[in-house]
């Protein structure tokens, strides 16, 4: 079986190289049949990659420990679901997943668009092929998932914290996001190469970008929730390089999704958009590199990783080639229009873009700073949490405010007077909220108070927009209010889906501000029967139990929880000791208040032989809004992603109006 896997990957590599060479030649020489053949090779490479993936999956499910990869990442006792998740639990498997998704996306994006944008597609194919050649090469020559060995009696098992339902969804979603960003990249480079620099590459990739961006966003929130409930240190985001690895491309993609609208509407920012796509894709590669190469710890571990140098070289080639190409094509990327006023929709979007980019680059700087300082000064300097928190506030808070202003300000040119009228109500609401919160004691954290006030402002603008739009649709003949609301959204999914996503981001901001700026913590060593208090909660340590599960021994302390004179029932916190892996993991107890979104978070940090426990307890106000924001984000993304023929026709019509003949 491993031979089949190896052969399939080799064929994939051959097909990718063929699609690259033949595709480039066909595009350059204008040979239509050769181009068609290159496209078919790209589609076929998806099939061969799928065969390789099926072989690996089969080996995992059979517990075939003669596969080195299987022996290293699973064990006999591991439940089936986690055996499947071991596919992306290690380096080789996750590279194979990358290639699988990449060839699938490539085949689909090319097949879907070759009808109406053939002249563009002929150049898109070799770009896809170049990326998949790289990954296929890595899998064939550097990090093969099909290495074999004499089968040991049992595998090494999986790290306990990865044995978790989140690990079934979180990594694949991130990969869908990373790889999904290849699609706009390939189309942008294809457009540059073919000199077909009209808006069609944007129209063809809009949904792909949205999809990749939504997957990255949801994937990250799932990862945060996993860290919160499973890793059990009391937080959900630690600015760790591997977390930042997903956040950076997401920020770049967010900037792109916004600036695209300016190009579609006003034909501006063409160079900027291409640069953002290149940045997003490079950061997606960089993110994969960070999580997979081990470079985050130190330059020294980088040289130990087999794929690290290859990855870095590929990123360098991608960046150099893309930037060179953009530079070469700048004359064709001149905008027919220009910014008319610094107070206008275009300008607001530009500020938004600059802030997103500044945040993204500040994070990137923090991630690479230890490596740069080690290379330059021989000593790695690590930038801690305060660095990131500072820039999140410095760039994130203005972004939050702009989220309320941008969508309502007029195109081209707005007067200060009209702004005052438009934002009269939201400003009033925000000021009122600020004063009330100050009165309630939120002044203990100024950034927190500012975040709340800005959030109130944005929410007010969103509510106002929905109310105004619904009223207009009612006046235009919708019979009922819900009907008017539905028709409002279905007539402009992009706009109103966007507002829903904005609402999700506001909820996220409120949740983050609440749980990080206004949280409290208490610690105490308790013997059975003793109690501790935090805020207005009272916790009494009642009993300690031990039970055996399939692959771990579970120790749980039971606590009675009271708040004021209300009995809130019991809460369990403890540890699991995993037998095969010989590891212990914290199992935290969380009590969520459905009404206020507040969590009581209990960690049994140290369990002594005499049964006394050192507890660490957090109260995190509003933290549940973060997870709720994930659901709202999903709904908003689905609204914007929903197929909309009317809009697609409108965009195609506008693109052909711009002057380039679009074959229908």
């Amino acid at each position: 079986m491993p031979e089949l896997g190896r052969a399939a990957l080799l064929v994939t590599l051959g097909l990718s190289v063929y699609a690259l060479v033949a595709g480039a030649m066909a595009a350059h020489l204008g040979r239509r049949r050769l181009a068609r053949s290159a496209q078919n090779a790209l589609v076929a490479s998806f099939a061969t990659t799928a065969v390789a993936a099926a072989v690996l999956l089969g080996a995992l499910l059979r517990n075939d420990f003669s596969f080195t990869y299987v022996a290293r990442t699973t064990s006999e006792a591991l439940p089936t679901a986690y055996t499947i998740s071991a596919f992306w639990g290690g380096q080789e498997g996750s590279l194979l997943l990358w290639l699988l998704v990449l060839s699938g996306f490539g085949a689909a994006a090319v097949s879907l668009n070759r009808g109406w944008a053939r002249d563009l597609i002929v150049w898109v194919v070799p770009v896809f092929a170049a990326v998949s050649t790289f990954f296929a090469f890595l899998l064939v020559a550097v990090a093969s998932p099909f290495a074999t060995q004499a089968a040991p009696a049992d595998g090494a098992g999986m790290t306990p914290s990865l044995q978790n339902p989140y690990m079934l969804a979180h990594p694949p979603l991130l990969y869908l996001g990373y790889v999904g960003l290849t699609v706009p990249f390939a189309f942008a480079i294809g457009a540059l190469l073919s000199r077909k620099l009209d808006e069609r590459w944007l129209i063809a990739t809009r949904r792909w970008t949205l999809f990749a961006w939504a997957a990255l966003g949801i994937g990250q929130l799932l990862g945060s929730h996993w860290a919160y409930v499973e890793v059990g240190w009391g937080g959900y985001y630690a600015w760790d390089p591997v977390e930042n690895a997903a956040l950076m491309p997401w920020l770049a993609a967010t900037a792109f999704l916004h600036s695209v609208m300016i190009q579609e509407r006003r034909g501006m920012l063409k160079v900027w958009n291409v640069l953002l796509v290149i940045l997003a894709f490079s950061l997606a590669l960089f993110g994969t590199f960070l999580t997979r190469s081990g470079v985050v710890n130190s330059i020294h571990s980088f040289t130990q990783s087999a794929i690290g140098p290859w990855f870095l070289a590929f990123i360098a080639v991608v960046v150099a080639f893309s930037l060179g190409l953009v530079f070469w094509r700048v004359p064709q990327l001149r905008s027919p229009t220009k910014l008319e006023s610094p107070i206008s929709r275009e300008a607001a979007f530009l500020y938004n873009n600059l802030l997103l980019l500044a945040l993204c680059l500040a994070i990137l700087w923090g991630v690479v700073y230890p490596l740069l300082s080690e290379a330059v000064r021989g000593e790695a300097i690590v930038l801690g949490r305060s660095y990131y928190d500072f820039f999140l506030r410095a760039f994130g808070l203005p972004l939050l405010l702009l989220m309320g202003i941008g969508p309502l300000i007029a195109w081209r040119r707005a007067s200060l007077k009209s702004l005052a009228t438009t934002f009269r109500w939201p400003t009033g609401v925000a000021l009122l909220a600020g004063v009330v919160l100050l009165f309630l004691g939120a002044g203990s954290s100024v950034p927190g108070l500012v975040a709340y006030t800005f959030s109130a402002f944005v929410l007010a603008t969103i509510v106002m927009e929905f109310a105004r739009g619904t009223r207009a649709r009612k006046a235009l003949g919708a019979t009922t209010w819900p009907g008017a609301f539905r028709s409002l959204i279905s007539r402009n999914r992009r706009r109103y889906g966007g507002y829903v996503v904005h609402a999700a981001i506001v909820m996220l901001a409120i949740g983050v501000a609440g749980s990080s700026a206004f949280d409290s913590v208490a610690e105490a060593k308790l013997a059975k029967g003793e109690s501790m208090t935090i805020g207005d909660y009272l916790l009494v340590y009642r009993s300690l139990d031990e039970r055996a599960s399939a692959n771990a021994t579970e120790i749980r302390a039971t606590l009675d929880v009271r708040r004021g004179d209300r009995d809130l029932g019991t809460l369990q916190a403890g540890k699991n000791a995993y037998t095969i892996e010989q590891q212990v993991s914290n199992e935290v107890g969380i009590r969520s208040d459905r009404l206020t979104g507040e969590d009581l978070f209990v960690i049994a940090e140290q369990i002594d032989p005499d049964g006394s426990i050192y507890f660490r307890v957090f109260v995190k106000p509003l933290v549940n809004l973060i997870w709720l924001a994930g659901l709202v984000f999903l709904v908003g993304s689905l609204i914007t992603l929903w197929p909309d023929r009317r809009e697609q026709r409108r965009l195609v019509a506008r693109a052909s109006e711009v002057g380039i003949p679009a074959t229908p």
Partner: protein
Amino acid sequence: MARKASPARLVIALSVAGVLAVFLLYTSIAGGGNPSLAPSELAGRTGDVQLAGLVVGPVRGDAHDGGLRFRLRDISGESKTSVRVLYTGSVPDLFKVGRHIVVDGELRKGTFVAEPSSMITKCPSKYAPKQSDSST
């Protein structure tokens, strides 16, 4: 040039200036980060540093009562020097002899006194770095 200069350049220039100003503000207030060192590089260092090393037993004491005592040596294994560490606060699940850990703190009279609850564990080479081995 008959065309009026576009404010785009002005906007971009001002924004870049603003970003730089924020950056300078940060570096002047907060200063740089902490140097990250291996145990063999620690001798004679003063001030806050981040120490990354391999845990060497025996591990004695109670992290919440007087402090946990153990030694750290270089992960690379090239140097045999190890340093005494005194640690208080929360101990990650993955902490044990043979593991790679990172602690913040400073050297005081030959003992590295760690800041409370600053320990982070890194998984050994069994797994490529993933989110799990970051913060515990």
